[in-house]
């Protein structure tokens, strides 16, 4: 089974309900789209992520009621350095969607999704703990897995695998 090339053209993917809905809401919110290996990815402009998620959650054609996961990828030394990844699931439509937000390496911060999904709480704390990405408006942004007094953020690419000795 050969891999089909990824589709990144917005025009071709306009038919997807989530893309159509976001474009109708705010064309500036969609920075890019990608359809690769049967998975849909939308890159959302960083200040619109909470609005986009609330919209996709409530819209009956999308119905992404379930937040599967939040994580982050560090593209050090490239800029924008961080990509925060949101995996949404629609239980009724049996569909998944990936949202991405790009953040710069200087002071990575993005709006918290806890007002939309209460379950974003631990996921965002984990990303803050391991990557140092701040989530503004989070009710309790403290380290989750590492000890309270830990220095640095271990999953960053400039953090050595063996740790600092």
């Amino acid at each position, binding site marked *: 089974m050969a*891999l089909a090339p990824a589709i990144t053209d917005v025009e071709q993917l306009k038919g997807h309900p989530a893309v159509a809905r976001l474009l109708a809401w705010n064309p500036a919110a969609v920075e890019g789209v990608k359809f690769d*290996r049967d998975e849909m990815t939308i890159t959302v402009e960083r200040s619109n992520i909470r609005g986009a998620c609330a919209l996709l959650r409530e819209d009956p054609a999308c119905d992404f*009621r379930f937040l599967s996961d939040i994580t982050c*990828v560090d593209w050090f030394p490239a800029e924008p350095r961080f990509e925060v*990844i949101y995996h949404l699931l629609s239980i009724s439509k049996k569909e998944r969607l*990936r949202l991405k937000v790009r953040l710069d390496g200087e002071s990575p911060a993005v709006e918290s999704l806890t007002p939309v999904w*209460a*379950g974003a709480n631990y996921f965002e704390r984990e990303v803050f703990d391991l990557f140092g990405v701040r989530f503004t408006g989070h009710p309790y942004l403290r380290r*989750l897995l590492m000890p309270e007094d830990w220095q640095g953020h271990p999953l960053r690419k400039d953090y050595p695998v063996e740790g600092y000795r």
Partner: protein
Amino acid sequence: MAHMTATPVLEPGQDRTMILNMGPQHPSTHGVLRVLLEIDGETIVRIMPDIGFLHTGIEKTCEAKFYQQVVPLTDRIDYLCPMTNNLCYVLAVEKLLGLEIPPKAQWMRVLMNELTRINSHLVWLGTHAMDIGALTVFLYCFREREEVLKLFDAISGQRMMTSYFRVGGVALEPPLDFFDRVRKFAGYFSSKIDEYENLLTGNPIWMMRTKGVARLSAEDGIALGASGPTLRGSGVDFDLRRDMPYSSYEKFQFKVPVKQEGDVFARYMCRVAELRESNKIVQQALDGMPEGPIKADAPGVVLPDREKMKTQMEALIYHFKIITEGFAVPAGEVYQAVESPRGEMGYYIVSDGTAKPYRVHMRAACLANLQTLPKMCEGRLIADVVAAIGSIDIVLGEIDR
């Protein structure tokens, strides 16, 4: 050890309340979960789980390994269902590679995955009942679990950390009498489930300790990201095996048990019914096991047979290259989720085109399920916390990774 001090995670509110520290070395927290309770008499005002005591940085370690070397690491995340984690990881890598898996390997995976679910649910049932005070059930459950572990031992050489699934198929052909042994086990196992149910389901003490305790509504469950039996016990009819099938699950007939009450008893009933369904899937997998190879035909990715290595130069070269250099995976990203015994287990893998994953992230079902604990327990009694923790079936290895 700032983690161990009474950090101000919970400040005492009024002078009526006190802070009680439960764990991390509490037997009913199933490992190293620390729970901070603010209590007013016996009633819980606030509850806050504190995790991270078992954090081993597996996600960071994965970034330094070849793709095939990550498989043994995945066993160690959720040590009660190693093969479910293996499956999720190899499915994700196969999706990145665009690799087609032969039918026999897919059916072997389903068979082993369901045995793993039985294993995991038996440990849950035994320990959960023991937490609440029914000590006998533990001995009964571990009697059958031992049989499952012997089957794992026979097929992979390991009782717990099996690493049996590999990218492109499964590691080995099963031993000659393996299917007969599984058939024998599946034949008598449903009568053993009746035994457990005889001990618990109609037991008045069990019902008093579980019915109406630690309720979770479907809306709260979905908003907090709960999945698996925790969510199905609250009336949400969703199972990834049926609704978003992977590894040939669409070819199996099974029911998805759903209960509406959302209490500890409902979650218990869901899981016990799942034991029966898993046993049915095991029998179907045995009856319909296809013939054919157990590994995909992908010389650069799948290790060649030992016999070929001794006779063919090409096979020897491929073996050497896979072991020393790994195999390159086309750049891209995938998210693969499977239904683990605890809920949605997901692997998000980013490849940059080299032989080592750029990023591996595990979506732990337990981490999200644990967030439901305050909703379940606040306003209830301390003794119910133990029942609630047991009913969401936590495994700290998976939560902390």
